[in-house]
């Protein structure tokens, strides 16, 4: 993640592209610019030197290129705006794309439910953060049933300091949250958020390691780059982040019915088309399209 002034920032972008990296997102806010980018680890020094020359700052954003669902039991005063938005916003600052999900009937420890649609929607993300409440008993009871069918890693937050082993079905747990109805801005609260980002980073690193054992046939940033070059309509999409990167694919914010053939037939210079290296599917989110890269074991090659 690069933070600096707008002046000459295109030099940095060109350098990243020359090095074979990818610019994922560029946000210009008045005279400041924030760029999320992927750079080969060996070339970090060159980028850092360039950033220094432009009086900017380069930091590692561990959540870059991931899409995270922050799930609240409902969208009521109990959870919004403060805690949920704080978590979503903070993860966004760390480079992730976050989507907020409010369940229809997620309340209560005995009566909580999740619909098939909600489950499928959450499964489209790289990771789900469940933001739960104050009481140990409730968190544990609720966890027994609520996460049924969710295949992505689950990070749970709540007030008590619990061990992950105590919480059924959860991948990780972060304490000191709970139902907080004020903006999280005190230093200890910010530290809690930092810890959450760190835990999520760790979970995602594990997922990356798993993925590396059978790597995707095409890297997600590559999918993004080719779509940007070959599908003109994406430029006109006004959605935030028209192509959202995930760890083994991307969400393309174009209607599936109209564009899936065009997306499937995208050409790579290596001589393959998109449908040979990835599956193009309808997304549960609106009428968007989801692209999932096929693993090497299925295609037999990596481009």
């Amino acid at each position, binding site marked *: 993640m690069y933070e600096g002034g707008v002046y000459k920032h295109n030099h940095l972008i060109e350098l990243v592209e020359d090095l074979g990296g990818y610019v994922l997102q560029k946000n210009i806010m008045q005279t400041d610019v924030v760029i999320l980018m992927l750079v080969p680890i060996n070339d970090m020094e060159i980028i850092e030197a360039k950033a220094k020359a432009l009086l900017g700052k380069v930091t590692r954003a561990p959540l870059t290129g991931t899409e995270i669902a922050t799930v609240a*039991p*409902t969208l*009521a*005063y*109990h959870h919004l705006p403060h805690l949920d938005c704080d978590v979503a916003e903070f993860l966004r600052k760390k480079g992730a794309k976050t989507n907020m999900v409010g369940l229809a009937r997620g*309340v*209560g*420890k*005995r*009566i*909580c439910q999740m619909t098939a649609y909600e489950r499928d929607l959450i499964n489209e993300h790289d990771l789900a953060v469940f933001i739960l*409440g*104050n*009481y*140990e*008993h*409730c968190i544990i009871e609720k966890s027994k049933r609520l996460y049924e069918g969710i295949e992505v890693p689950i990070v749970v937050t709540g*007030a*008590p*300091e619990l061990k992950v082993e105590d919480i059924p079905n959860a991948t990780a747990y972060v304490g000191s949250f*709970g*139902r*907080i*109805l*004020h903006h999280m801005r005190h230093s200890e609260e910010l530290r809690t958020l930092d810890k959450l980002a760190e835990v999520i980073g760790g979970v995602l690193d594990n997922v990356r390691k798993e993925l590396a054992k059978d790597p995707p046939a095409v890297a997600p940033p590559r999918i993004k780059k080719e779509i940007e070059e070959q599908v003109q309509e994406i430029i006109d999409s006004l959605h935030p982040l028209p192509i959202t990167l995930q760890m083994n694919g991307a969400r393309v914010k174009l209607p599936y019915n109209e564009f899936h053939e065009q997306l499937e037939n995208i050409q790579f210079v290596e001589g393959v088309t998109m449908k040979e290296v990835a599956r193009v599917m309808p997304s549960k989110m609106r009428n968007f399209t989801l692209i999932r890269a096929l693993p090497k074991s299925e295609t037999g090659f990596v481009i």
Partner: protein
Amino acid sequence: MEQLETFIVESPDAVGAKTTRTLIQDVLADLSLNRVIGRLKVFVDPVEPVFIFTALLRLGTPAIRLKDFAKVDMGAIDKDEVKIELIREAHAVKLLNKLWERYGKENIEQPDKKIIMVKTDPIKELDVLRELVIEEPQQEVMDRLIDAVALRIIPEGFRVRKHELSTSHIMFVASEDTLKPEWIAKAREMLESLREAEKNA
């Protein structure tokens, strides 16, 4: 009288009690209810599960009527009109809105800053106008209080509720399951202990 002389959150789960305490503070501050609640006692048992909220209220000023801040008289002898002479202007905006709503804009005239003429039958309407409620601070506070307790403080999943509400106290018992009589008895007990403390203070 100090605000929140008693503020107790009891629960077998100490961490939960602490967070709930912060939560209640936040909500009361958000809706500026700190001065309204005199004593407050909350009991939470997540295992049962039950949430009991009891508080003694200090509501402050009663409803403000037109006669409290204006002289209401008959207008000119040969006309059907009522003359309202404002002594304080503080409630003028709300008063005008109420009058417009009741008599229609065309029947209200304001020839001077402090004088409002209402075209209506003075014999019938004079007393009604004198008693017209312009502002109900108590009702407004009550609305906010219910908002705070029922919509923000009580855990969302606790859909089965029993409440008691008066100008002097508020009591809420909420649970996910059918309410047990002993919980309601406990709530009354808590309320009684708050009253006791109030008396001894």
